[in-house]
């Protein structure tokens, strides 16, 4: 059981809702992932398209915990504005805070992120802050009032997997708030490796949406998250640079 700001969640896997080929495929993939927390984004209604194409027509807010993000925001002010709009929709006061600093890598603007975290925390928001894998930034986000810190495995949408297991482990060992690794996971082994670092959860989108078979990948990811968590809790054997036989060396024929 995962707990963030006194809210319990049944799954350690959180998923996004972007980039799926169809809404139907998205719904089936989310179901297969077992995720409870599902991210959504705030955007202008398209007034020239007659039909109302909002994502909530496909996602039940009773079945899922909707986590609004501030993706695409490049300043603290902009991210705060998006967070406030999302909260007015009335689902909860959680926000996945992104303040992006670079269009090419989508790496965070950590100064803007800290500023927005402090403002939103003062306004009662439960801030889950998307950040890089830097320990000091993670500590400052916790100090600023973030209820969870979300370091990246690798850049958003890159599928490069976990680039720095050591930094993720360090962040987990030094912070008291939950650590949810967000972004960069490409396949099941990446998710398993992330969870083996002892973090509290993982959030992914593109790895499912861009898989050839999103439902199949979502099932694999669910199993990988459980496997990685299980292996972390079980405690792995030490790494050795020499072989040690598994079979007794006594009792051999002369």
């Amino acid at each position, binding site marked *: 059981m995962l707990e963030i700001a006194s809210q319990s969640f049944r799954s350690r896997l959180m998923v996004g809702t972007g980039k799926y080929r169809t809404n139907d495929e998205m719904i089936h993939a989310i179901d297969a992932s077992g995720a409870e927390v599902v991210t959504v*984004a*705030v955007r202008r209604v398209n007034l020239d398209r007659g039909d109302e194409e909002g994502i909530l027509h496909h996602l039940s807010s009773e079945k899922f915990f909707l986590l609004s993000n501030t993706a695409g925001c490049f300043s603290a002010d902009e991210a705060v504005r998006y967070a406030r709009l999302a909260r007015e929709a009335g689902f909860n006061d959680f926000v996945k805070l992104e303040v992006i600093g670079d269009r090419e890598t989508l790496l965070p603007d950590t100064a803007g992120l800290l500023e927005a975290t402090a403002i939103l925390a003062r306004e009662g928001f439960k801030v889950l802050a998307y950040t890089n894998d830097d320990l000091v930034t993670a500590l400052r986000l916790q100090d600023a009032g973030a209820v969870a810190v979300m370091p990246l495995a690798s850049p958003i949408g890159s599928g490069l997997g976990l680039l720095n297991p050591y930094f993720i482990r360090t962040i987990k060992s030094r912070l008291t708030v939950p650590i949810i690794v967000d972004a960069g996971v490409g396949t099941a082994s990446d998710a398993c490796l992330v969870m083996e670092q002892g973090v509290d959860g993982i959030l992914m989108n593109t790895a499912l949406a861009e898989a050839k078979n999103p439902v199949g990948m979502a099932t694999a990811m669910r199993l990988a998250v459980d496997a990685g968590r299980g292996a972390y809790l079980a405690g792995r054997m030490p790494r050795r640079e020499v072989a040690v036989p598994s079979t007794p060396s006594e009792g051999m024929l002369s």
Partner: protein
Amino acid sequence: MMQLTINGEPRTLDPVDTVDAMLRQLGLDPRGVVVELNRAIIRRADIAASRVQDGDTVEIVHFVGGG
């Protein structure tokens, strides 16, 4: 007629008094959107009572897919 700027575009509407009436003229269900009027968020409970005037700037947002 009244002129508004809605989601960044100039729009001409039949005269309306309230945000609620504006949304209905645009064919939108007030329960499915959040409205910002001249940069101030309109609380859900206040949509029916909030006045909209000629020249106002309005943002109407909803949730879409995202990561």
